[in-house]
């Protein structure tokens, strides 16, 4: 048997003998991927309260305000809080005065609050008068809340905008002239489209321009008076629509089409799994590479090198071992994600395995480099943790690199994490063919080759074989 394979067999045997190692390699990633999935809300089977705590105080008697409150409560990403603890066991409705106090208190029950004031619609301004209080501790969270809030208002209570228009017009024109304007408008509509002018006028003056109907889910009973304002029934969207029943998307008619990943069953998990997988792999493979220090300290290398075995044999057997371990671990991770989150791997198995091999190679070379430059196992582990964290962050395993400054994004492309994730998403998300993923594989192979070259050079100059 070639020495490389004898050594490889030994490493595998050693690995299997080490029960802690085996469970760390397989059970822990399995558990972690499950936990991560739960934390990031992938395929959440909703139980219990979730969503961002969001306090709402409704001081308006406008029925649309109540509707807005209902809509916010219906928004899955919010957990709407409207009351607070009162003396005794009772609870009482929140008031505007409570909000600042509660938000500034340590362990604040919420960081975002909305006040719908009495003058939600005023004559002095166009638009809605709402008060948004925030503690923008997390930029991402704040952006999310803002976006969700806008979406909810526009898509669920468009009447508020109509009302606001009327109120504003009243301010400009005065009661009498507005009434005249509304009357003329109602007559014109009635004579052009039909319908009872009096009813149309009363609706117009109430601010009801029918925006609500634009977004109403059912078109079962269209109001005959306003039906022409309804856009023609849109053709079914070509692919998935953005899913937001946004009033503007109806008025402006933006047909959104998801061009990539439209058929992916579990999109969120698919995008995330690659990043997790590669981080696990880096940690596992660095640990296995730093196992070389144990062998050195035990004097095993002396025994091996006094046999017909060269340093290169030892290094390449370690490399092969790392690739095999990495491949197995990735298979386990993807199997876990497919069983937990329904990520489809079977149709892509061949290409996925290919990417896994190249990613495992790149990760192994990283581990070898760490072992080659560190003086001992402790230093190696410290250095590895730092580098893995940095690479994971830069490479986009934690959040999309598009959120980073352009300057930083340049560095992302230097990380093997970035290219491994590109590889995984090319296969799982975009469903690319072998030929299409060749460039990514090439880059991963290039990273592996150059990192290994440095590692081998360092090993030969360093002291690990001494």
């Amino acid at each position: 048997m070639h020495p490389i394979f004898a050594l490889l067999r030994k490493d595998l045997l050693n690995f299997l003998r080490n029960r802690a190692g085996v469970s760390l390699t397989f059970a822990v990633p399995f558990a972690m991927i499950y936990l991560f999935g739960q934390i990031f809300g992938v395929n959440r089977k909703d139980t219990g309260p979730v969503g961002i705590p969001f306090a709402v105080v409704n001081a308006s008697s406008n029925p649309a305000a109540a509707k807005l409150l209902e809509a916010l409560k219906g928004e899955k990403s919010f957990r709407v809080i409207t009351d607070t603890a009162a003396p005794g066991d009772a609870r009482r409705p929140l008031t505007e005065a409570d909000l600042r106090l509660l938000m500034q208190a340590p362990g604040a029950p919420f960081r975002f609050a909305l006040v719908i004031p009495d003058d939600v619609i005023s004559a002095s301004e166009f638009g809605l008068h709402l008060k948004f209080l925030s503690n923008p501790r997390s930029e991402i969270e704040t952006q999310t809340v803002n976006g969700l809030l806008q979406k909810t208002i526009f898509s669920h209570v468009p009447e508020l905008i109509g009302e606001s228009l009327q109120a504003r017009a009243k301010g400009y024109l005065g009661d009498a002239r507005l009434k005249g304007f509304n009357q003329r408008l109602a007559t014109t509509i009635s004579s052009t489209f039909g319908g009872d002018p009096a009813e149309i006028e009363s609706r117009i003056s109430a601010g009801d321009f029918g925006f609500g109907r634009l977004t109403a889910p059912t078109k079962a009973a269209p109001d005959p008076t306003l039906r022409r304002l309804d856009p023609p029934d849109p053709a079914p969207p070509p692919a998935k629509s953005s899913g937001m029943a946004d009033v503007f998307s109806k008025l402006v008619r933006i047909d959104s089409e998801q061009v990539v990943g439209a058929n992916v069953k579990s999109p969120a998990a698919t995008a995330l799994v690659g990043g997790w997988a590669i981080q696990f792999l880096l940690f596992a493979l660095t640990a296995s590479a730093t196992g070389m220090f144990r062998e050195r300290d035990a004097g095993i290398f002396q025994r091996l090198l006094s046999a017909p075995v060269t340093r290169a044999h030892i290094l390449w057997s370690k490399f092969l071992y790392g690739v095999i371990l990495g491949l197995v671990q990735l298979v386990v991770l993807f199997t876990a994600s497919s069983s937990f989150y329904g990520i489809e791997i079977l149709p892509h198995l061949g290409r996925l395995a290919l990417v896994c091999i190249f990613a495992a190679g790149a990760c192994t070379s990283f581990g070898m480099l760490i072992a080659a430059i560190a003086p001992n196992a402790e230093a190696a582990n410290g250095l590895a943790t730092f580098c893995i964290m940095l690479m994971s962050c830069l490479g986009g395993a934690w959040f999309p690199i598009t959120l980073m400054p352009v300057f930083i994004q340049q560095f992302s492309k230097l990380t093997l994490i970035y290219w491994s994730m590109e590889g995984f998403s090319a296969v799982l998300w975009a469903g690319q063919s072998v030929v299409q993923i060749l460039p990514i594989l090439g880059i991963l192979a290039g990273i592996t080759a150059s990192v290994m070259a440095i590692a081998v050079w360092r090993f030969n100059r360093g002291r690990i074989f001494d």
Partner: protein
Amino acid sequence: MLQLHSVTKCYGALTALDSVSLEIARGEFFGLLGPNGAGKSTLMSLVAGLRAPEAGTLTLEGRALTAGDITGRRALGLVPQHIALYQDLTAEQNLRIFGELYGLRGADLRTRIAEALEAVQLTDRRGEPVKRYSGGMQRRLNLVAALLHRPSLLLCDEPTVGVDPQSRNAIFEYLERLNREGLSVIYSTHYMEEATRLCSRIGIIDHGRIHALGTLDELLMRLPFEEEIRFPVTPTTAPLAARLGELGEIATEDSVHRFRPRPDVKLSAFFALTESFGLPPRLFTSQRPTLEGVFLHLTGRKLRE
């Protein structure tokens, strides 16, 4: 079979081996006796090809030993000073790996493993991970792991550290048997008892230099007499007592002759004389000169300090 010619090895500023020349003949049991840091392990590692010397040449069976040349090493077996075994694997698995590295396999490898385990009495524990072995058992396994491929030269670097007397004896007997069967051995130790018992020739090494080289007797003969030798007053010893006056002072008290040699008299001269009268060494009760004494004499320091 092995020649070292003016071999020098440095670790940075430290000269671990200083122009060492040495020749080991086939079938020899060569002892390398020296204290900690003398350079024994360094010498072994050069012969095993783990390191390259700064100067000098090594040849094995007429073929230059270089650090990169791996084929020449098949004839060598190295028993490292530290236990170099995979602790999580069983004795059998360890031996299998080391055998495979020498290209052994199949039935041949299996028989050799069985023989090796039998030789060091580990057969019934062969399926246990090495980490559960006692220190002495690990030592024994460490030893046979270097023998599976039947080398012609065995490099034993202090193979009995931490081994109880009984196991030590078992190891000695095993090595002696192999040596009788033709294995050449270089055995490093700082126990003079081991060198005395095992080695047909001994090199005394200190501070990277070989201070003396020879058989036990040759080494002992280098030692000047400084002590008193006592032997009983009997008719058979009378002629010896009469002649000893030539070599030093002889006094007789009660039934004991007490002989104090002159400083320039060699031990060999004394023994030559006793032999010529056919007197067995057990008659002489003086503290017999030891390798320890030789070492002290040559280097001015004790073997273990």
